């Protein structure tokens, strides 16, 4: 504060000194003049005349000392700020538009940046790939050990290849305060392949990564921090996991994350033996050699892949393909398209906002024409004026940017709140330095963009004379800008419309099950206590009667999986044999889902048995095996024959006793068959491979009671058998709506952006028309004086608005046809270039646009000719 005051004082005294120096000169000259005989007054005047314009010269002198860039910038800024305060409506509108555009872009960018652009926390992450076999069983590629071992030995395209055992496993830190943790089993070269070095301690050695080696573990930074208080002496100590002692070799760095984005508290060696055949799936990652492309790597791996196919059971072979994709693609799964769509949508909103502000500035610059002309006449250089205008728009954009950050933080919180699960890295999205930097640069670029139009139209001094006549060219530019805004809004509207329609389609598919009044519960039995099929069966045998105790609730089902979501078992159609029919050709027909259910499954979910009968309790004691087919599977296996009574071979031979109606999952129908759960350890039960077996199970209960009570009751019953078993409860309706969560999220966001776009465009067209009315008030006055009715005048204005709206709509329609094509897989059952959506969006746009123009047209119609003509 003191330095400011000093600066001010110095500035003041400097001005005084300039003045004193010049008046000394003038006095001396006047004295000379008097000495040479002039009269007193004349002498002074002559001195002044001789000297010239003192103000201008002082200004010149001042520039010699003070016209640093910074000082004139401060001057410009102060001038701009005063101007903004003087016209608050303009300023608020412009800041509102900028904040909306910048805020929306920042929020979306902060999410999308993590998905699309930001580098992954590994060294040279662009060289990292995920390698494996893709199959319909798993949306991610995997390898069995018998394939991985030779691949690792003979592969050529990679510098390094590593693996971890798919899926983090729950493990219990069995110490004083036992806690359940996530353990990931990784190969010894896992960290080096990703270029990660432990924060403390060391990685596993190859010797520790062998079966029966001494047990070791690495801790995540988070676990080390929360559980062990960042104890630096922890390395080398032992902890007990699932009752076994493990030596801690190292602590992972804080930035560590699993390449698959799973949460992991501990890494332990996966101890893969070269001869292992136990069926565990591996996730394999590799680092490409320099200069090797994905295609080259895939070609190089083909021979090994073909070799490995031989170890795949015959029915699955044709379903498998080799897949090598970048780590980023593996991580973001199918979020790429949606990310780009959202990014493009906010870019459109930002452009609309910029065009809007440019428009406002143009209107303002026309109002300031006189001021500018006066400043030019007083000697302001053209460049100086341009700089002033650019400074103003930059100031505006920076203010807008700051307000935009506030908008962005609100929007981001909203996005995260309404976002469905499974959007990669959403939890990490934040307005950090990088995002704010992009926002800042973005605002400046916007500022330059919308400042350019008015800046290039700074008037010359001559326009001081004829200042009222200019403006037609400028109006053309402004109307073009409005048309552009309308066009961009229409593209957003059609995009949002199509997504909404797709969402509506998705939500109104008949699932084929009755979702009301059904409560479901899912759980996975602990690995330790339920490793054997006998233990699993024993649990279910205890659970069933307990659930049925309260059977008045309604029908109850036990199954390994439930539609429409969650993991379920499947096998290739070709692996189902029908007695008395030739086996199907391999790889024809895709996958068939199957479920292991109790008789209550069909009544609980409301799936009607169309033909034959459902399961009954007595079947569970029978030595016979029974199976129920879904309609579509029956058609595939038996074509027109009657399947009832026929025998098919799946897990074990079984007789078909009924045909159930199809269940639609999402946007497609998967053929299914249902195997009956028995009370004994039959072939189906004991055939399932450890470690998973039948540990995963779901309960479904149809009950008129409120879901909260029912869920409490289910939890109590489960807890009475196994108090530590976690149970996930959801109503069937929640599970079904989970399917449409993602499309709903994207549709909501796009609708939001379309709303912003159309709001801004409406403000834009209102502004231009209101301005037009103001400009033409005199002309309107004349017209009215000559007998034009208010209706004619109103039409005149509306016609003008309609002309530009139509121009914008035409361009927007063309743009929509191009843009909505990119939505592709985001749409379900929406015809390309859906005419209904296009028509609806266009109508909405026309209505809003003409609505916005209607207000100024009313004003034009109410112009009082007397007032208008008296003006100026």
């Amino acid at each position, binding site marked *: 504060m003191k330095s400011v005051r000093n600066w001010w004082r110095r500035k003041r005294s400097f001005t005084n000194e300039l003045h004193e*120096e*010049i008046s*000394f*000169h003038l*006095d001396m000259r006047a004295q000379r003049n008097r000495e040479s005989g002039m009269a007193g007054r004349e002498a002074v005047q002559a001195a002044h005349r*001789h000297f*010239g314009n003192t103000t201008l010269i002082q200004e010149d*002198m001042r520039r*010699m*000392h003070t016209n640093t860039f910074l000082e004139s910038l401060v001057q410009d800024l102060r001038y701009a700020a005063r101007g903004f305060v003087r016209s608050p409506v303009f300023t608020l509108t412009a800041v509102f538009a900028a904040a909306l555009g910048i805020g929306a872009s920042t929020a979306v960018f902060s999410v999308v940046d993590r998905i699309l652009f930001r580098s992954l926390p590994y060294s040279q992450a662009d060289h990292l790939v995920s390698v494996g076999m893709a199959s319909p069983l798993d949306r991610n590629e995997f390898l069995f050990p018998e394939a991985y071992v030779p691949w690792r030995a003979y592969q050529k395209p990679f510098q390094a290849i590593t693996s971890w055992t798919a899926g983090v496993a729950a493990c219990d830190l069995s110490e004083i305060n036992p806690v359940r943790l996530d353990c990931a089993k990784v190969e010894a070269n896992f960290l080096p392949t990703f270029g990660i070095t432990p924060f403390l301690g060391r990685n596993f050695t190859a010797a520790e990564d062998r079966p029966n080696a001494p047990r070791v573990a690495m801790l995540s930074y988070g676990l080390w921090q929360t559980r062990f208080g960042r104890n630096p002496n922890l390395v080398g100590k032992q902890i007990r996991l699932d009752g076994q002692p493990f030596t801690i070799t190292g602590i992972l760095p804080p930035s560590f994350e699993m390449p698959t984005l799973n949460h992991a508290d501990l890494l332990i060696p996966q101890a893969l033996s070269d001869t292992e055949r136990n069926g565990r799936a591996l996730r394999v990652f590799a680092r490409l050699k320099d200069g090797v492309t994905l295609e080259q790597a895939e070609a190089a791996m083909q021979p090994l892949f073909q070799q490995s196919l031989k170890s795949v059971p015959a029915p699955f072979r044709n379903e498998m393909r080799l897949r090598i994709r970048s780590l980023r693609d593996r991580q973001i799964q199918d979020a790429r398209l949606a990310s780009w769509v959202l990014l493009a949508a906010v870019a459109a909103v930002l452009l609309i906002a910029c065009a809007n502000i440019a428009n406002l500035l143009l209107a303002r610059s026309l109002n300031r024409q006189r001021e500018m002309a006066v400043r030019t006449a007083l000697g302001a250089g053209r460049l100086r004026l341009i700089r002033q205008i650019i400074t103003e728009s930059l100031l505006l954009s920076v203010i807008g940017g700051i307000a935009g950050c506030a908008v962005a933080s609100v929007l981001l919180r909203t996005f995260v709140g309404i976002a469905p699960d499974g959007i990669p890295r959403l939890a990490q999205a934040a307005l950090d330095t990088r995002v704010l930097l992009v926002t800042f640069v973005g605002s400046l670029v916007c500022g330059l963009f919308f400042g350019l139009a008015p800046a290039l139209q700074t008037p010359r001094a001559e326009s001081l004379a004829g200042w009222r006549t200019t403006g037609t060219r400028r109006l053309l530019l402004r109307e073009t800008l409005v048309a552009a805004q309308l066009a961009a809004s229409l593209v957003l509207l059609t995009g949002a419309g199509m997504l909404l329609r797709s969402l509506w389609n998705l939500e109104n598919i008949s699932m084929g099950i009755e979702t009301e009044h059904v409560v479901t519960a899912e759980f996975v039995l602990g690995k330790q206590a339920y490793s054997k099929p006998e233990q699993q069966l024993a649990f279910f045998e205890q659970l069933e009667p307990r659930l049925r105790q309260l059977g008045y609730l309604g029908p109850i089902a036990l199954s390994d999986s439930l539609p429409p979501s969650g993991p379920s078992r499947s096998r290739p159609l070709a692996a189902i044999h029908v007695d008395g029919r030739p086996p199907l050709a391999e790889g024809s027909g895709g996958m068939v889902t199957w479920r292991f259910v109790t008789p209550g499954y069909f009544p609980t979910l409301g799936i009607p048995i169309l033909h034959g009968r459902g399961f009954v309790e007595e079947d569970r004691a029978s030595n016979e095996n029974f199976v129920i087919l879904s309609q579509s599977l029956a058609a595939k296996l038996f074509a027109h024959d009657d399947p009832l009574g026929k025998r098919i071979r799946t897990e074990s031979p079984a007789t078909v006793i009924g045909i159930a109606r199809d269940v639609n999952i999402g946007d497609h129908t998967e053929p299914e068959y249902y195997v009956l759960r028995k009370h004994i350890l039959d072939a189906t039960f004991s055939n399932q491979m450890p470690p998973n077996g039948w540990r995963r199970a779901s309960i479904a209960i149809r009950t008129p009671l409120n879901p909260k009570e029912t869920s409490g009751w289910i939890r109590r019953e489960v807890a009475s058998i196994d108090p530590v078993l976690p149970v996930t409860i959801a109503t069937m309706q929640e599970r079904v709506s989970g399917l449409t969560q993602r499309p709903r999220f994207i549709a909501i966001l796009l609708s939001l952006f379309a709303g912003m776009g159309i709001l801004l465009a409406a403000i834009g067209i209102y502004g231009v028309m209101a301005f037009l009315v103001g400009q033409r008030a005199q002309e309107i006055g004349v017209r009215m004086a000559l007998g034009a009715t208010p209706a004619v005048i109103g039409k005149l204005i509306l016609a003008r608005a309609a002309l530009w709206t139509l121009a914008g709509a035409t361009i927007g329609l063309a743009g929509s046809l191009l843009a909505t094509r990119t939505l592709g897989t985001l749409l379900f059952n929406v015809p390309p270039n859906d005419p209904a959506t296009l028509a609806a969006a266009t109508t909405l746009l026309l209505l809003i646009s003409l609505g916005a123009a209607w207000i100024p047209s009313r004003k034009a119609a109410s112009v009082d000719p007397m007032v208008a003509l008296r003006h100026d």
Partner: protein
Amino acid sequence: MALAPDNLQGTLVLLILKTLTRGPNHGFGIALHIQTVSDSALRVEEGSLYPALHRLERDKLVAAEWKVTENSRRARYYKLTPAGHKWLAAAEENWTALAKGVNKVLRFA
């Protein structure tokens, strides 16, 4: 935007600096001197004199201070700095060379 000694625009500057070799002086004194010495052939444009003086001050070729004149008025006195002396020497040389050159051309034609 420091001045180069071979800048022709520096003619006024040359005259100012030369005048100041006689000792510190104020703007009016400088103007008067140039006018008198050149027998009124050179009339200093006063509108450019003061900005030029201030530019010289900014470029540290002259230094300025407030002093009281003979008839006890405060005036801003300018005097040459060592840099100003050096600049002047170079500029004078340039000027002479230029004048010679121009003279030769004029005579030849």
